[in-house]
């Protein structure tokens, strides 16, 4: 077998009494696309951070081109050609694509920056990667998908030997994914080792040559992708073979009682002519790719931008026009935002205060601490947050557990209607099922739930009814029990049903 470009050999790492990695060995090869799989908390991020020089391993070696190395820090790792694109992008929005990509490699003539030469260099670089983005625009003007491509281009500009991509397609639409995949294949041809940290099985089978599965700090499987199938991978990830997603079948919807009625809602250039009814105890889903307008719809229903829409919303038959989120909240509506880090968590708070932040009105001016402890403790039980420690700071929880905490915040607040935008983004398979089970239980208690999601598996396993949006319009309403993921995707992408073979 070929020489590995980077190798982690028997790595151990623990935080306090928490053993995160226990003897992990992984090899990365030149010109390969390799997947790093594992549920949240399996140790993926820690391993990558050690390879990035962010953490030091307690025990074990890192070998670069067969030679043992010790990093002095993340910058050192970068200099040695180990690069990483994070899930949350890391760019200067006010600066141009050129300025972002060129970074510290500015081309100078007579001691002054020669911007023209810089632009040309960046243009050539982008062309080589097959990216057609204008190099002069400001990054903040670009779509999220384009920003992602620029970020990758920026890392590749440094000529890395190995590039880690953390869930690169999590916020991309199907069409955008294709562009990303094309880019990854091109990178592979240039001899870079691309490591995908992902939850998407399609991605693994479409792109990757090799995979490694982590579970509880150990490598449970690794080898050529060809040797694996979905069942085997999920089995290795979860430790037991399980039916991944229970198909949604029973509905708790009380179709005599309308909770929320939306009539001809529209915001210019975002979405238009949206009309639907949400019934008591029902889980309604809005499907659609990124850019279909479903996120904007969710935000409008929560009053995030005030009353800047046309059309009407009724809650319990009474007009509802939320001027701001606190107004919506006071009227019994909750909302779980799409971006956990930016709009979800309070990093200065422990888990308890993170859960109770939306229910303070219920606890009184002098916070009823006993009630707060009871409710937040119960939430941690119900959502199976691990570790079950109310007093641990939120940043010390894994991403999936943070998401559960943010979700439970609105459940604790006891709202009548809860809106969830991509509720399981970046959450592992096991935790997803727990979240769906919880939503179903809440629906059975009469709460109306609206999920906004672009994952078809999620739509199928969590909802009663699916409304598909495309380019700001509603294109189709489907009953979950009678549809398939192909049908959902077909409407999301093409807006119409596939021509069935006769």
């Amino acid at each position, binding site marked *: 077998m070929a020489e590995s470009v980077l190798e982690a050999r028997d790595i151990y790492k623990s*935080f*306090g009494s928490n053993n995160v990695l226990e003897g992990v060995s992984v090899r990365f090869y030149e010109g390969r696309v390799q997947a790093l799989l594992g549920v949240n908390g399996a140790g993926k991020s820690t391993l990558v951070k050690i390879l990035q020089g962010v953490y030091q391993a307690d025990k074990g070696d890192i070998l670069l081109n067969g030679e043992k190395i010790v990093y002095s820090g993340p910058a050192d790792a970068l200099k040695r050609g180990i690069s990483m694109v994070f899930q949350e992008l890391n760019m200067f929005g006010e600066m141009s694509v050129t300025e972002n990509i060129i970074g510290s490699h500015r081309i100078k003539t007579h001691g002054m920056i020669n911007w023209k030469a810089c632009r040309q260099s960046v243009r050539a670089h982008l062309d080589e990667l097959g990216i057609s983005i204008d190099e002069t625009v400001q990054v903040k003007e670009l779509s999220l998908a384009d920003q992602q491509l620029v970020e990758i281009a920026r890392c590749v500009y440094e000529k890395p030997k190995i590039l880690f991509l953390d869930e690169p397609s999590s916020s991309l639409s199907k069409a955008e994914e294709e562009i990303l995949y094309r880019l990854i294949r091109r990178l592979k041809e240039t001899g870079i080792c691309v490591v995908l940290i992902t939850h998407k099985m399609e991605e693994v089978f479409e792109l990757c040559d090799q995979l490694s599965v982590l579970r509880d700090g150990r490598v449970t499987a690794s080898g050529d992708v060809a040797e694996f199938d979905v069942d085997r991978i999920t089995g290795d990830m979860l430790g037991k073979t399980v039916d991944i997603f229970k198909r949604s079948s029973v509905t708790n919807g009380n179709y005599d009682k309308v909770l929320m009625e939306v009539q001809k809602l529209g915001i210019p250039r975002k979405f238009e002519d949206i009309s639907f009814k949400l019934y008591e105890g029902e889980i309604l889903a809005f499907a659609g790719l990124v850019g279909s307008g479903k996120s904007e719809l969710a935000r409008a229903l929560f009053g*995030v931008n005030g009353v800047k829409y046309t059309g009407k919303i009724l809650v319990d038959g009474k007009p509802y026009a939320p001027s*701001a*989120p*606190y107004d*919506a*909240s*006071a009227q019994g509506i*909750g*909302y779980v*935002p799409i971006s956990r880090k*930016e*709009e*979800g*968590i*309070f*990093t*200065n*708070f*422990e888990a308890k*205060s993170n859960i*109770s*932040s*939306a229910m*303070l*009105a219920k*606890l*009184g*001016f*002098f*916070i009823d*601490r006993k009630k707060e402890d009871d409710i937040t403790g119960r939430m941690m039980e119900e959502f199976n947050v691990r*570790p079950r*420690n109310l*007093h*641990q*700071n939120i940043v010390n929880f894994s991403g999936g557990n943070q998401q559960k905490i943010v979700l439970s*915040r609105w459940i604790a*607040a006891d709202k009548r209607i809860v809106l969830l935008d991509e509720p399981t983004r970046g959450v592992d398979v096991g935790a997803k099922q727990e979240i769906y089970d919880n939503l179903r239980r809440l629906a059975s208690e009469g709460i109306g739930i609206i999920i906004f999601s672009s994952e078809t598996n999620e739509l199928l396993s969590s909802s009663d009814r699916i409304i598909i949006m495309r380019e700001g319009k509603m294109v189709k309403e489907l009953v979950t029990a009678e549809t398939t993921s192909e049908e959902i995707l077909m409407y999301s992408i093409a807006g119409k049903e596939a021509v069935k073979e006769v």
Partner: protein
Amino acid sequence: MKEKKGRFQFGQMGGLIILAVFITAFFGIATKGVLLSSQNISNILVSASLNGVIGIGMTFVLITGGIDLSVTGNIIMTSLFLGSMMLLGVPWFLCLLMALVIGSMVGLVNGISIGRFGMVAFVVTMAMNNITSGIGKLYTNGLTQYGFPKIHEIICGSLFGVIPGPVLLMAVVAVLAFIILKYTDYGRQLYAVGGNPKAAWMSGINNRRIIMTAYVISGFLCGLGAVLMTSKLMSASSSMVTATEMDAIAAAVLGGTSLAGGVGTVGGTIIGAITIAMITNGLNLMGVSPFAQQIVKGVIIFAVVAIDSFQKSRRSAE
């Protein structure tokens, strides 16, 4: 995991506690015990009281991620109005009430500009500092007003002949502020808004109202500070206080309050204010020149913040 929490909290105020012990020991020895005589301790606490009161208001504002640079102007203007009213023969309790109202009104203007209209706190309060001190000077033509024995007697008397009035006032304010920050939903929302404004907004918290209230509290405490100073000095003038905002920020920061928002405690600020007063007092007792005192104060504040930030970077490196 429980231990981790304890260590973290110690870390926040650790630098200050070590410093306070060290300073007490140093000046205690250097002044041959005079520093720790009961009369001198009382002096230290009285001179810390204004900074303590203003520092608590500043702590509220800093927790929101803002800053209040208008406190000096606010105190001067309020004191001059207070003095004028006293001289006009307005009943003393009405004068005191008016002082609190005037101080709060300045805070309200700050709060509306920053909370409601999203103006930058640094600039708004700096401008307000100029406006208020200017109004005060214009109104009194820059003259000093003096002779208010009545309020001096009331505010600066002492309880049971032991606890001086200003210290009692600071203690009452501190206890109330502590309760508000720790046990009320307002306090929790204040930390939430400062910790992550977007997440607070998305949790259904009315950021505008929370921020506005913080500035009103700071303004109210400036009114109280004006009462304190006017009665202590038995006079009001346009130069009665200088750079109070800097002392208040120093006290808060020494006490572990973060200028980035979301972090800060009343206890820390009070200890910070007392530490600063102790340094000044100790240096005075040693006969150090006021110019050298400034350097010493600056170095100490720098050192505490540096220690704190080294601790933080070591923690995050773990």
